């Protein structure tokens, strides 16, 4: 029986607590009285995942069984979430592979010849052949790559089609092959309440023309939070687009959720509450931390990125997207939601080594910002864990390092745009079109493994709500110059950071540490 999430109040019994800080972690003693948000313990996963998938495909919600939707001569397109999900990547076999294999078994039995598989990578970088193979499995890869197993290309004008406009004038433009298929089967992993549902096709297969309607500063500032769909302007836009899509294309959605088992057995201490660490956990902490510090940085990154999470699958639901997604969301929240009593003056987050956009890559400063002020800050319902004008303290080294193949436009954004302004609106107004239409970035996105030129700007917008809400942002252990370039401050220790924060929030601030990963979603009352 998994225990629910809860809020710890630090007392004299509380041992030092674990903080992630990039490709490393540390123990930190928090001031007495600080609150710590813990997620619910990892829920048990299904014993027989394949049987659950079979059950979902045979008894979908709002759709006939999948086998009845498949027929000889049809055009079937299977779309799946790209490598940005889940985080960290899943131990093989990936659940997408399991689902796709069963869908293909049914398609083969029905005599479907025209099958295409597309990674719904939107403006993300293309997945490499090795990454595709890892996601869909050897058998699928061997049968379909390279001609019928592809990445979505949001800049391939010839293979995009405009579905129409929503009542709000939003253009819905998606992958032509998918749009012209008799059936789109979307295979999803919903890691947080932000993903899945109406977002899957309308974002995963969309073009910049379509994405800019919700990936903008105004929408993100009115998404409070973007992990709480009913209160997220971004999701309202997704919903409008999904409604239009539902009228024009036939989507069979298969959504899965995972539990909170992020780290393998030998790193079990990262999954446990600190006062429950036994001697083995403590020894593992000391050994791993020390070894981690001694390993050269490049090797260290490789080791961290080799970590594959032993997730358990907690739900598999199939059918009409609008009926499937509420069930998926319930499952996500059951695993992540923790009730918190009101916001505090200071919020603390330890930022880990991975975010959706640096899988097998480098977490550059812009991604650190988007992870902290975007993803982690927005892990709330009702209100943020920090009061308006409060201070966010993050743990991360924020090194000035970039992966030039994956993030070329990020380098220019950091060097040129942030040197001029850090204001999201000014950035959007002055620079977005330039970055979005730059032919070199488009070439790299289509032919290399680069994120789209506009992507760093989106990452900056991702933090727009937090930037507007917070009074100050401090990075413990952050590179001074890099954080200053982004308009933030750095401190060498928590004590220093708290001292700096007191300038803003007074001498006796209330403090909340959002203990994540694993992901904890704060329901702030």
């Amino acid at each position, binding site marked *: 029986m998994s*225990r629910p999430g809860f809020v710890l109040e630090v*007392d004299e019994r*509380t*041992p030092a607590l674990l903080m992630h800080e990039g490709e490393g972690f540390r123990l930190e003693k928090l001031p007495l009285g600080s609150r710590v948000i813990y997620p619910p313990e990892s829920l048990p996963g299904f014993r027989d995942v394949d049987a659950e998938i079979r059950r979902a495909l045979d008894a979908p919600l709002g759709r006939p069984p999948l086998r009845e939707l498949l027929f000889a001569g049809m055009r079937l397109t299977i779309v799946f979430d790209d490598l940005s999900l889940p985080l960290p990547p899943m131990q093989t076999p990936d659940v997408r592979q399991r689902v796709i294999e069963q869908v293909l078994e049914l398609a083969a039995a029905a005599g479907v010849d025209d099958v295409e598989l597309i990674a719904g990578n939107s403006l993300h970088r293309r997945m490499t052949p090795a990454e595709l193979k890892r996601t869909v499995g050897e058998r699928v890869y061997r049968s379909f790559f390279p001609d019928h197993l592809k990445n979505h290309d949001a800049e391939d004008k010839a293979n995009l089609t405009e579905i129409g406009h929503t009542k709000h004038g939003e253009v819905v433009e998606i992958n032509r092959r998918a749009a012209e298929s008799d059936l789109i089967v979307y295979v999803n992993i919903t890691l947080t309440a932000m993903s899945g549902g109406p977002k899957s096709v309308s974002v995963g297969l969309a073009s910049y023309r379509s994405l800019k309607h919700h990936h903008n500063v105004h929408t993100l500032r009115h998404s409070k939070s973007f992990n709480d769909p009913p209160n997220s302007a971004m999701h309202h836009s997704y919903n409008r687009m999904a409604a239009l899509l539902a009228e024009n294309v036939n989507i069979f959605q298969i959504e899965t959720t995972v539990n909170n088992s992020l780290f393998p057995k030998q790193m079990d201490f990262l999954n446990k509450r600190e006062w429950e660490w036994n001697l083995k956990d403590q020894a593992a902490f000391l050994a791993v931390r020390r070894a981690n510090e001694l390993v050269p940085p490049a090797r260290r990154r490789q080791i961290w990125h080799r970590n594959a999470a032993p997730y358990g699958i907690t739900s598999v639901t199939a059918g009409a997207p609008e009926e499937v997604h509420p069930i998926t969301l319930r499952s996500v929240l059951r695993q992540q939601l923790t009730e918190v009593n009101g916001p505090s003056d200071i919020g603390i987050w330890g930022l880990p080594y991975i975010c959706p956009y640096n899988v097998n890559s480098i977490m550059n400063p812009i991604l650190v910002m988007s992870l902290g002020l975007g993803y982690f800050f927005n892990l709330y319902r009702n209100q943020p864990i920090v009061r308006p004008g409060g201070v966010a303290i993050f743990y991360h080294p924020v090194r000035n390092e970039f992966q030039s193949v994956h993030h070329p436009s990020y380098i220019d954004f950091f060097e040129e745009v942030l040197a001029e302004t850090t204001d999201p609106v000014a950035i959007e107004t002055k620079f977005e079109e330039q970055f979005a239409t730059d032919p070199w970035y488009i070439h790299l996105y289509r032919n290399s493994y680069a994120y789209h030129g506009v992507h760093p700007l989106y990452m900056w917008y991702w933090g727009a709500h937090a930037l507007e809400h917070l009074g100050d942002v401090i990075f413990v252990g952050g590179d001074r110059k890099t954080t200053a370039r982004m308009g933030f401050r750095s401190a060498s220790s928590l004590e220093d950071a708290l001292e700096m924060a007191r300038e803003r929030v007074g001498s006796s601030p209330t403090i909340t540490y959002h203990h994540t990963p694993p992901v904890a979603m704060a329901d702030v009352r």
Partner: protein
Amino acid sequence: MKRRLFGGFLDDLRMVRQSRDVQGRARTPRSALVHESQKRSDGFGTAWARTPTARAARRVLQTGVLKPVTWSQVSPRIEGLDHIEHLRGPVVFVANHSSHLDAPLIIGSVPTRLRQRLAVGAAADYFFDARWRAIITTLIFNAFPIERRGSDRRRSLAPQLLGQGWNLLLFPEGTRSEDGWMAQPRLGPAHLCVQRQVPMVPVILRGTYAAMPRARNWPMPGRQRVIVRYGRPLFPEENEGARGLHQRMVQAMSRLWAEDELGWYGSLRAQAKGELTLPSGPKQITADGSGSAVPSGSWRRSWEASRPLPKETKHSRVWD
């Protein structure tokens, strides 16, 4: 490089060790107590510890190691053994609990005949949470797990052991005292004695908190004085319920504690006048001289309890 390796390691070690005991266990923060996992300790069987071989090994360990080491570290005075000399088991010893010295002192002082068939109730979540710890505790103390909370409490091994003729040593407060004073004892031992119709022997230990309080892993230096005082056995009376026996147990323990301040006869007089209560620490100082106990958490409680018992002098005993 070497300094980085070892300096950093020592810093990390220091951080890990903070708020943990020598066995690496941290106490659960108060706000997390309600979320503690209910570990089932019944996976660890203790029957092997009552086999002839284990009993023989225990006899050697208790008389050859446990008692000599304990007696070398503290200076115990044992009183009231005459009350239990001729007692026939099974019997339940109930004692106040403020130190890891308590069980070794009772085991070392109880008559051999009773010790050889003595089993000690030990907290399942503390002594039986790791296999190696459970084995050591079971072998040396003939311990059996006691669930302190949760539904497993009803499945205690204690009635079964009494039925098999084993004497039990139980600490009815459920845990070692935080500040050296007695917490309200639980009803369990009284229930057990009434249910099995066995006598209960109240025992008071004084000075053990000062000699080895919580968080210490070895007694304080200087062979501090401790007192182990056995009371008269309490037999469940006809038609007496557990609450009645529990009440008598509380009175007996209060009186045994007060003997040090009031003397034997003085404590009897105070008891007769209804002036005795469980030792609950120093009193609040009020203008009219009355006053209640200092509230828990006050430094004065630990301060008073950690005061070592005065050294025994040659003149303190009339008949010496």
